């Protein structure tokens, strides 16, 4: 569409799991539609937290599976596609590839290589069969205070970014209007592809003055590969641009003998900037804690274009308010992360994995406590799954078999240790497990003797999401609940749902993070009514969090009061108004409209 005809209002739109990072492709589009890039939040979160890097393929499969029901005729063939290929079934990805040409990322070699396959299957799967999501999708009214995009705006953007940085082609923009799950649909008209902090700053400054709403997009739009990261090997501190793909950073620091403090299923495509903006959790959380601890410094562009330099690499810095924490986990609503300094722990050579069964939930809890005491410094994962998860995984995952005899154990636990001395760590783990078995905490168990066995154990845990979408409809909740109450909600939900569906409980027990999945053959309002608002109310009553690691986004923005007091929400609103007075950043997300 020629620039002169572009007179639609502007709004920005976040898509995919990285909800914002430097490589953001800014997405300006007509705003009146209900939609929002929120579905991906659940997907992103899922990918974030429920899969590990250990099995990229598993993750890829998982991702692919999420799209399965969207693709007409289920024509996705290759098993074990890479996450990038998986995009084949989704428009968002084909857009990714189509715009990649002129500005190929420095990182993400694989994505380039596989372009052909991807486009081919994208073509095959082009017809998206709309699932009936209406009951789940939130509806948003456009705020009339936002301005309307005009041809002057477009010319201005072109003057900053050049012709190739401003995308107006309808087909290319259209594909970015569908989120990963196909849950929301937008009508964007303009996509901006900035390459540097300065460009981001100019765009925001302009949008702020014009009051054009902006939604930054991260992961998988990878246009700014990020410059070569800078590494401080003495202190193990990595400094890089927000557009670096997590997996590339991971291999970068691994070559130097360190690891990234977070690991998640989407690592092949998600950007570090997006991880930080969403405060991604993931599989190393129990060991290395949240990004609030690992991130040492940030460079952030505020809504008026101000570049806020907080890019220090100090472990200790008690001068004034620690502002960077505002931007970690604020989902892009306060500013856009453009550079990151992050502390990386040393890479340890010895990893051991055990897969155990327990007879009841109380044993799992006791086992966790015992593991904290006895495995202390080497414990790196403590994941639990109930019997239903295992049955589902065995039924739907190819090549997966239960390492334990098929006795009807009620719970399964995966324990991983990471340490510096193979024989010492193994002896320690064995001694702990044997004692737990004598104490009756563990009913049975196996210890991986090599890496492929370890991957097989992880495959079961990581494959649950993938297996669950094969049933049909999945209602997913990501809750933080005190460990001793954590399984009660699963049982209560089972009672409520009855024959209508199947309830799965699994998650990061070590972090008190439950993934509650309710499976059913199709989405229905009746089912939803059984689940919501019950699940939020119940969690609120236990003083839990309705979003442990997936974020709020659009889907749960109005639900924030279940987890935060009204005073806290008010203060958040004041901060939002202070940093983004025109509310141009990621509108309608995170906070309820009523307080803004």
């Amino acid at each position, binding site marked *: 569409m020629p620039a002169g005809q572009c007179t639609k209002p502007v709004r920005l739109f976040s898509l995919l799991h990285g909800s914002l990072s430097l490589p953001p492709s800014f997405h300006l589009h007509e705003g009146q539609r209900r939609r929002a890039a929120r579905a991906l939040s659940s997907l992103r979160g899922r990918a974030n937290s429920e899969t590990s890097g250990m099995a990229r393929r598993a993750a890829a499969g998982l991702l692919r599976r999420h799209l399965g029901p969207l693709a007409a005729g289920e024509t996705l063939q290759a098993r074990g596609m890479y996450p990038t290929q998986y995009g084949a079934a989704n428009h968002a990805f084909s857009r990714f590839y189509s715009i990649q040409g002129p500005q190929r990322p420095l990182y993400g070699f694989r994505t380039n290589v596989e372009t052909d396959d991807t486009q081919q299957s994208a073509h095959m799967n082009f017809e998206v069969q709309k699932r009936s999501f209406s009951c789940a999708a939130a509806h948003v009214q456009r705020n009339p205070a936002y301005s309307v995009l005009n041809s002057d705006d477009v010319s201005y953007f072109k003057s900053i970014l050049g012709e190739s940085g401003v995308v107006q082609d309808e087909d290319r923009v259209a594909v970015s209007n569908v989120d990963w799950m196909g849950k929301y649909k937008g009508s964007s008209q303009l996509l901006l592809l900035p390459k540097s902090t300065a460009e981001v700053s100019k765009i925001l400054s302009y949008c702020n003055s014009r009051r054009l709403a902006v939604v930054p997009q991260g992961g998988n739009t990878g246009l700014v590969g990020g410059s070569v990261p800078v590494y401080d090997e003495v202190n193990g501190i990595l400094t890089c641009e927000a557009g670096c793909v997590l997996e590339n950073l991971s291999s970068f620091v691994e070559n130097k003998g360190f690891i990234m403090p977070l690991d998640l299923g989407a690592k092949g495509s998600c950007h570090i900037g997006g991880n930080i903006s969403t405060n991604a959790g993931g599989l190393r959380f129990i060991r290395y804690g949240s990004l609030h601890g690992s991130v040492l410094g940030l460079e952030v562009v505020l809504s008026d274009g101000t570049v806020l330099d907080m890019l220090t690499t100090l472990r200790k810095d008690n001068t004034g308010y620690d502002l960077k924490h505002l931007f970690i986990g604020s989902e892009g609503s306060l500013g856009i992360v453009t550079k990151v300094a992050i502390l990386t722990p040393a890479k340890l*050579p010895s990893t051991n994995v055990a897969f155990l069964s327990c007879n009841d939930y109380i044993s799992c809890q006791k086992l966790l406590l015992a593991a904290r005491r006895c495995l202390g410094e080497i414990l790196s994962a403590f994941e639990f799954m109930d019997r239903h998860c295992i049955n589902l995984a065995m039924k739907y995952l190819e090549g997966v078999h239960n390492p334990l005899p098929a006795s009807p154990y009620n719970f399964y636990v995966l324990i991983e240790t990471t340490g510096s001395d193979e024989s010492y760590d*193994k002896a320690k783990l*064995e001694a702990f497990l*044997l004692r737990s*078995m004598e104490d009756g905490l563990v009913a049975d*168990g*196996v210890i991986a*003797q090599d*890496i492929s*066995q370890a991957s097989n154990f992880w495959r079961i845990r990581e494959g649950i999401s993938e297996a669950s979408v094969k049933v049909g409809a999945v209602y997913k909740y990501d809750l933080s609940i005190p460990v001793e109450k954590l399984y009660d909600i699963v049982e209560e939900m089972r009672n409520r749902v009855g024959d209508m569906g199947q309830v799965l409980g699994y998650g990061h027990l070590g972090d008190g993070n439950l993934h509650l999945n309710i499976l059913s053959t199709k989405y229905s309002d009746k089912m939803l009514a059984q689940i919501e608002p019950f699940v939020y109310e119940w969690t609120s009553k236990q003083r839990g969090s309705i979003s442990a690691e997936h974020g709020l986004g659009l889907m749960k923005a109005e639900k924030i009061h279940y987890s935060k007091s009204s005073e806290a929400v008010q203060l958040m609103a004041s901060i939002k108004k202070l940093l983004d007075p025109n509310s141009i950043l990621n509108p309608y997300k995170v906070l309820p409209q009523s307080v803004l």
Partner: protein
Amino acid sequence: MKILVAVKRVVDYAVKVRVRPDRTGVETASVKMSMNPFCEIAVEEALRLREAGAASEVVAATVGPAQSADTLRTALAMGADRAVHVLHDPKPSHPLLPLTVAKILRALALQENPGLVILGKQAIDDDCNQTGQMLAGLLNWPQGTFASKVILDKEKATVEREVDGGIETICLDLPAVITTDLRLNQPRYATLPNIMKAKSKVIKKVTPEDLNVDIRSDMEVVEVTEPSKRKAGVILSSVDELIDKLRNEARVL
């Protein structure tokens, strides 16, 4: 009847192998070491034969440094009854060659007197695929290599081998040597009760000298280098460009 199973400790199958900076060999410090996957299959097959009643005892044996005991523990945790550890820590420049290993295993076989020796068809570190055959030759026993199915009765073993044209079935008089192929079985996991039991099982330690085997080698490894890296490819925008490149750069048209 007794079954002797040879196992080897190697760099884990899933580890990306790196050459040592001094180029004397492959980096093994701080690298995950595991039982050679084909040896796991050999142990599993021996255990299944014992469980089926065709054998009464499974003895695992290895040749290697002190840490190789871990590999024997794995075999014991899978279910082997006892183990023999032939201690030898080779210099990187003088690794043990298949003939030497076969000689050591022959000495063990003569001591232990098994009805069957099962080995992996090859180790994934040196990929020699020779030890089993050499052992059979030294012992003058029949051999069934690359076994994909093994049936054992009192005096003979029936072995199916996957060959190019289909499946070859051979019949061996016992005692015999069998080497395992990938599809023979799916090895079991080491369960906690079995790991516990394995702790009280005996690992007998001997040296090559005890067995009267000369381990001197005539071969010296001079240098180990990485294969040259593949050059990055290019993405062309049109068929014409491809034809042009094929014609003028590759000169194949």
